[in-house]
């Protein structure tokens, strides 16, 4: 690690790795600092990503893909299963990654492109000058190094602190944090190519429970519930254990992880003088699905592209960096976040009986372009009444 870079990236997840790699490809010097001693561990993720979304950044490689998905199922509160399949039977629609290896691959590629990487190195404070971020103090094994940079990219995840130290409020409202737990379970009976989502206030209040296959008899079995609904005796772990006891009584957990997923709106502003915020730290997780891998990589790449332009013109002010904020908000990703936020807000207000009614109305769907939007469109098509109930939201779905 040197003491000055064009771009200093805080965090070595997918967002940080793509940001740093993009920066060096644009001719900048860049360094990733990762507070943990290993890239990719521990992973706090259900590891699902759509095929098209993944392929926009990297060609699929069996080294870091656990399983290929051909469809999905949604289980209504009453236990009814709605199956979703691609119009083309057997068509791969998504992947369950092995994030331990995926994250390493991304950082590996960044390193080979010329990015410096420091692990077990924690940004403990920003270096500020006249209100402008100029770098960070990096703690590593008892020493503190001052690393200056033209632009700092905060990619420090859900537990992000860096942008807060720079004066940006990143607090997630309690009702909009998904309090989550997941087991990687072995030796269970599953369909190994279908992701299954369980809905309902008794299964996962204001959230959902997932079974994402990792192999023939192995899956990420996890749950996220609203922080508002969490409390002593009815936490995410309690709900998950109830489900596992009932559904996979003989399954063997071989990994146990907890997590928090924000399903709020993104930060009001994702830049400041000398600072850009990307991925989970910017709260750009999809509020409906909780998916954040693609959005992290998308914002990471875009931030580095805008940083390169701004460094090129020697203007890294908030005003100049705002191009990043405006561009991602206007992008397909930004619009999907806004739309899915409204859909999530609608769905969490529905009682189980209403969810049953909606899901029963569509027994089996063949989707043209396997996406949450096409699913919502199909549900509305067979429930024309829903259009009225959705009110102003309906316009954003057409």
């Amino acid at each position, binding site marked *: 690690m040197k003491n000055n870079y064009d771009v200093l990236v805080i965090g070595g997840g997918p967002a940080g790795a793509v940001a740093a790699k993009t920066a060096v490809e644009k001719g900048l010097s860049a360094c990733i600092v990762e*507070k*943990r*001693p290993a890239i990719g561990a521990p992973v*706090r993720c259900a590891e699902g990503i759509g095929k098209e979304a993944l392929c926009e950044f990297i060609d699929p490689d069996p080294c870091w893909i656990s399983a290929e998905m051909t469809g999905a199922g949604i289980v209504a509160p009453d236990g009814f299963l709605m199956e979703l399949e691609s119009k083309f039977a057997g068509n791969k629609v998504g992947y369950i990654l092995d994030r331990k290896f995926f994250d390493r691959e991304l950082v590996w590629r960044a390193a080979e492109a010329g990015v410096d990487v420091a692990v*077990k190195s*924690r940004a403990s404070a920003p270096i500020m000058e006249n209100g402008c971020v100029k770098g960070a103090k990096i703690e590593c094994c008892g020493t503190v190094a001052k690393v200056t940079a033209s632009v700092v990219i905060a990619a420090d*995840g*859900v*537990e*992000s*602190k860096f942008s*807060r130290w720079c004066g940006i*409020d*990143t*607090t*997630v*409202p*309690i009702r909009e*944090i998904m*309090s*989550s*737990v997941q087991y990687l379970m072995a030796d269970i009976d599953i369909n190994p190519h279908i992701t299954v989502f369980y809905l309902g206030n008794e299964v996962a209040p204001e959230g959902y429970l997932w079974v994402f296959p990792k192999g023939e008899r192995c899956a990420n079995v996890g749950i996220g519930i609203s*922080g508002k609904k*969490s*409390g*002593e005796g009815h*936490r*995410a*772990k309690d709900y998950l254990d109830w489900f596992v006891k009932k559904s996979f009584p003989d399954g063997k957990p071989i990994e*146990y*992880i*907890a*997590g*928090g997923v*924000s399903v709020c709106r993104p930060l009001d502003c994702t830049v400041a003088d000398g600072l850009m915020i990307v991925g989970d730290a910017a709260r750009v997780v999809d509020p409906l699905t909780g998916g954040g891998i693609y959005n992290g990589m998308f914002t990471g790449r875009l931030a580095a592209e805008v940083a390169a332009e701004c460094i090129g013109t020697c203007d890294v002010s908030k005003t100049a960096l705002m191009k990043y904020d405006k561009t991602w908000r206007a992008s397909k990703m930004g619009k999907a976040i806004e739309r899915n936020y409204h859909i999530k807000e609608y769905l969490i207000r529905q009682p189980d009986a209403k969810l049953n009614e909606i899901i029963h109305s569509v027994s089996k769907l063949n989707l043209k372009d396997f996406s949450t939007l096409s699913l919502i469109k199909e549900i509305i098509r067979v429930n024309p009444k829903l259009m009225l109930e959705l009110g102003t939201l309906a316009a954003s779905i057409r």
Partner: protein
Amino acid sequence: MLKVHRDICGYCGCCVSVCSEGALELIDAYLCVEKSCTSCGICAKVCPLGALEVVHEK
């Protein structure tokens, strides 16, 4: 004051994201509680594992 049950904590950072005081920080596998903690208990409520407890001093 806020007590961290370290045998239960999964060091996931869920609590850090909801703390409006910015009083929590996850340093690798160690959750730190800073002096600015007001013992509001939001973190204890959202913790997926039940690792946090507000202990009222007598």
